[in-house]
């Protein structure tokens, strides 16, 4: 169990590039993981929320339940003097903000919104009381879809707004009109990507403990960004300073973006704990999660590709309409999906003329926010589905059409039409690899051999994506972010035994940072992997930084660890050089020793640590005592390192039931230098499973009254063992010129390509039957209905407008 790793060398050193087994595993395998719900909090009171049963209404009165000693009841008025409403902003012209109160003040805007809170001795008792709270809500007309948000009679959802949208943007790049005029083929398609619940297996949850004597708030929560979350809490709480909050993040049971936001529930908990002067605990249940933790996607798209007959894309045009929900989440806002999808749509292709409009609509549904992939699955779905349609229309193999448009290897660094700076890439060989590994020609031969009335048909589909990773402050600033994520940091300490402890600002939730970062430290210092501990997730312990999100941790925290370790190594060499009385330039690290020129005795790290920490009288004045080194890492180029991948799916479609079976799924990925290829594979596998979920199963449903129809895991289907096939991965390593070791991030890529690759494969299987996939998830019902519809009409190429709003151009 304590094996340093399968790839450790004879001395137990396990460094960059090796599939070292994770140091995180052992405690989880014993059941000794420590999640927020596992934090012992004797005497804690439990909190349950009263949530809105209707999608839109005016709260007229709230009556407290009958309380017993020690129980308490809270409404917005009780917290008004301590908790400010959450306001998420974006520096974009026309962006509209609205306050999101921790408990509803006068209006409720989605089913599940927090209205009041009850605190009692147990969660069960708190739920009993919450049921007895009488809330009188006058129903108001409901906006149940993004399209309906712009109906003439739609109610305005937030006072003072100019319409029901968080953001509207129109952008044109290159010489769009001229390019369109020049193009020989114009192909328009519309798509829809449904609303998702990120659904980590661990729901949200937090424990707030206010200590009146010290004025300190100790806040345990499962989040992705400890320091940022602490900043947000401090900004929201009146009379509490940043330094008065210690935010502790224990093990996090999956997050995927949903745990980056500051939620009303967390703020309410902190405020009530301060008011009560005690410990209050709230562990979200699954129904609450599906109702009110941030949702994602729900993106309607209209795409036009203007191309030449040889398949060259001349111009690209897209409209995105996102259902952003009722409020903006802090900090990423409900514009995140529309912003990202419109910005990244050109992907790996040489597209110089692009026009896009994107709207994030405000509706009476739960707020939306970041979920692994953000915007990219939608952009990829729209782009890659349309490329297949174009390929089919032009009679070109889809992979060949893509090859003709891929950015050439010699074009890097390449600035995209929307201004993204791709650091490096080598795309064409990846396409070749995918085609080869999928047995493309064999699949085509098998398709030709299928009888015309075959009950089951096979198909193949590809999808490309480019994933921006490890981008920092300037890039976020350019996008209009108010919160900027500029760096990560690490403190490396050597102890008397010559072992290392690393404290770092990133905050993992399954990514294996403790392993990867220890590998980097081992690489630089040559301290054995097993002698390196990593600590994360406590604002009183770890240095300031941003956290774990946006596929950036290994690059940025890895960069910080590398830098701090180099400083340590320099110090060890300086001490050794002094003790050996030689020039420092003549020393080097070998094993866990510093070696000098011939005739000197190598000095083990433990000996140098003794001098550096205790026997400091042996040091000259020019060398400061101590062996702790802090470094932060802000990449020299802030536009990020761009990973890329192509996904390929092979499916069988049952034309009688519409059921789709995934026969094969391949990912060809390139994330530069990998630190731990096993962990990279794990990220890809997990991402692909989420992509498959989105492609085939997951969908949050609301009815016309804004009532959610998916509030349990029996309704909201997550992919299981039976739905995810044995995924294959092929690697390529195009180093980033901008990062330590040439690393690139890779957290999100896996989930981007699924809907597009599977959508393309299903469409490919049903070619000739007049069916093409336009919605994710693609369900058996959809496929069957489309087959029925196709039988009764000729396939119409004409595209109806997707919504009544016409973008101003």
């Amino acid at each position, binding site marked *: 169990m304590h094996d340093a790793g399968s790839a450790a060398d004879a001395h137990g050193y396990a460094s960059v590039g090796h599939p070292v087994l994770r140091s995180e595993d052992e405690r989880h395998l014993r059941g000794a993981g420590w999640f927020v719900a596992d934090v012992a909090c004797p005497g804690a009171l439990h909190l349950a929320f009263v949530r809105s049963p209707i999608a839109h209404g005016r709260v007229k009165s709230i009556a407290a339940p009958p309380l017993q000693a020690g129980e308490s009841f809270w409404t917005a008025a009780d917290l008004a003097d301590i908790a400010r409403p959450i306001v998420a902003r974006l520096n974009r012209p026309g962006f509209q903000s609205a306050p999101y109160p921790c408990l509803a003040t006068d209006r409720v805007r989605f089913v599940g919104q927090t209205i009041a809170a009850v605190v009692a001795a147990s969660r069960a008792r708190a739920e009993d009381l919450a049921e007895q709270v009488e809330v009188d809500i006058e129903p108001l007309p409901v906006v149940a879809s993004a399209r309906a948000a712009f109906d003439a009679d739609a109610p305005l959802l937030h006072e003072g707004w100019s319409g029901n949208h968080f953001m509207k943007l129109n952008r044109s790049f290159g010489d769009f009109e001229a390019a369109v005029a020049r193009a020989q083929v114009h192909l328009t398609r519309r798509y829809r990507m449904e609303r998702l619940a990120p659904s980590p297996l661990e729901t949200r949850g937090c424990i707030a403990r206010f200590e009146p004597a010290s004025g300190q708030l100790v806040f345990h929560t499962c989040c992705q960004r400890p320091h940022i979350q602490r900043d947000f809490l401090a900004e929201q709480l009146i009379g509490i300073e940043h330094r008065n909050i210690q935010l502790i993040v224990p093990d996090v*049971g*999956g997050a995927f973006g949903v745990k980056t936001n500051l939620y009303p529930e967390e703020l309410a908990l902190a405020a009530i704990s301060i008011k009560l002067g005690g410990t209050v605990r709230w562990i979200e249940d*699954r129904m609450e999660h599906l109702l009110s933790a941030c949702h994602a996607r729900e993106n309607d798209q209209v795409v036009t590709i203007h191309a030449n007959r040889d398949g060259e894309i001349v111009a690209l045009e897209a409209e995105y309409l996102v259902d952003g929900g009722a409020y903006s989440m802090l900090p990423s806002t409900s514009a995140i999906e529309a912003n990202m999808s419109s910005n990244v749509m050109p992907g790996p292709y040489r597209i110089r003329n692009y026009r896009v409009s994107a709207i994030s609509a405000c509706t009476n549904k739960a707020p939306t926010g970041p979920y692994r992939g953000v915007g990219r699955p939608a952009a990829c779905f729209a782009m890659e589905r349309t490329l297949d349609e174009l390929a089919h229309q032009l009679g070109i193999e889809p992979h060949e059409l893509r090859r003709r448009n891929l950015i050439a290897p010699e074009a890097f660094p390449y600035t995209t039409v929307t201004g993204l700076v791709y650091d490096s890439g080598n795309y064409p060989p990846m396409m070749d690899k995918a085609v080869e590994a999928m047995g493309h020609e064999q699949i085509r031969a098998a398709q030709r051999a299928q009888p015309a009335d075959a009950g089951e048909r096979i198909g193949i589909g590809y999808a490309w994506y480019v994933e921006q990773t490890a981008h920092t402050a300037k890039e976020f600033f350019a996008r209009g972010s108010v919160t900027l994520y500029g760096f990560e940091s690490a403190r490396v300490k050597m102890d008397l035994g010559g072992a290392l402890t690393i404290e770092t600002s990133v905050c993992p939730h399954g990514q294996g940072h403790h392993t990867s970062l220890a590998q980097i430290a081992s690489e630089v210092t040559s301290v054995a992997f097993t002698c390196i501990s990593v600590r994360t997730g406590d604002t009183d312990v770890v240095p300031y930084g941003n956290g774990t999100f946006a596929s950036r941790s290994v690059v940025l925290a890895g960069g910080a660890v590398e830098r701090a370790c180099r400083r340590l190594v320099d110090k060890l060499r300086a001490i050794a050089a002094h003790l050996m009385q030689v020039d420092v330039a003549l020393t080097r690290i070998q094993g866990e020793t510093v070696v000098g020129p011939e005739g000197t005795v190598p000095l083990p790290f433990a000996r140098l640590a003794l001098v550096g920490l205790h026997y400091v009288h042996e040091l000259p004045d020019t060398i400061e005592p101590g062996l702790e080194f802090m470094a932060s890492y802000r990449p020299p180029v802030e536009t990020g390192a761009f990973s890329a991948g192509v996904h390929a799916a092979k499916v069988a479609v049952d034309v009688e039931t519409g059921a789709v079976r995934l026969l094969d799924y391949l990912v060809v990925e390139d994330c530069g230098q990998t630190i731990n290829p096993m962990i990279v594979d794990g990220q890809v*596998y*997990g991402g692909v*499973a989420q992509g498959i979920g989105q492609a085939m199963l997951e969908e949050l449903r609301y009815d016309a009254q804004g009532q959610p129809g998916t509030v*349990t*895991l029996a309704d909201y289907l997550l992919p299981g063992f039976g739905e*995810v096939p044995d995924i294959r991965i092929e690697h390529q390593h195009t180093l980033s010129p901008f990062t330590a070791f040439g690393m690139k991030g890779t957290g999100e890529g896996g989930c981007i390509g699924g809907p597009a690759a599977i959508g393309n494969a299903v469409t490919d299987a049903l070619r000739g039957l007049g069916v093409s996939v336009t919605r994710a998830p693609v369900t058996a019902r959809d496929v069957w209905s489309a087959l029925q519809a196709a039988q009764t009409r000729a396939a119409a190429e004409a595209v109806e407008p997707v919504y009544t709003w016409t973008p101003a151009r």
Partner: protein
Amino acid sequence: MTDTTPPMLTLELTVNGSPARVAIELRLSLCDLLRDSLHLTGTHAGCEHGVCGACTVLLDGEPVRACITLAAACDGAQVTTVEGLSGPLIDRLRAAFHAEHALQCGYCTPGMLVSALDLLRRKPELSDGEIRRHMAGNLCRCTGYVGIVRAIRACAGAGAANSGVSGR
């Protein structure tokens, strides 16, 4: 009914080989009994309605969903949680989970181990397809199941035989 005192019961059972005597509210689930009353937090609640499998434990040797099993119904029973699993097969499973990167965040892991252990005890010979079908009651949101299938495969049939470990 104005009396809000919840109906209680004193329960006696054996958990991980040790006797336990606990006063419980009648509505308490086995999951909450283990976690809150006995502080065995290795059993995780993922959905509390019997779908995700994170809370799977052994009750009288059989896997059950602790979240939808009433604690009161377990009077006199033998309960084994992830903390109490022992023996050569679970040792091998744990090692295989580690070697095959069968966990990331670790939240589903206790339930996975319990289900996998039960499966291997009942069906030492398993194809990948059978592993996938029989493990379908446990959800993982991180790994895509690839590593978990490999880990179980490594402990099944020939894999187990090669290592000298068999399913009891």
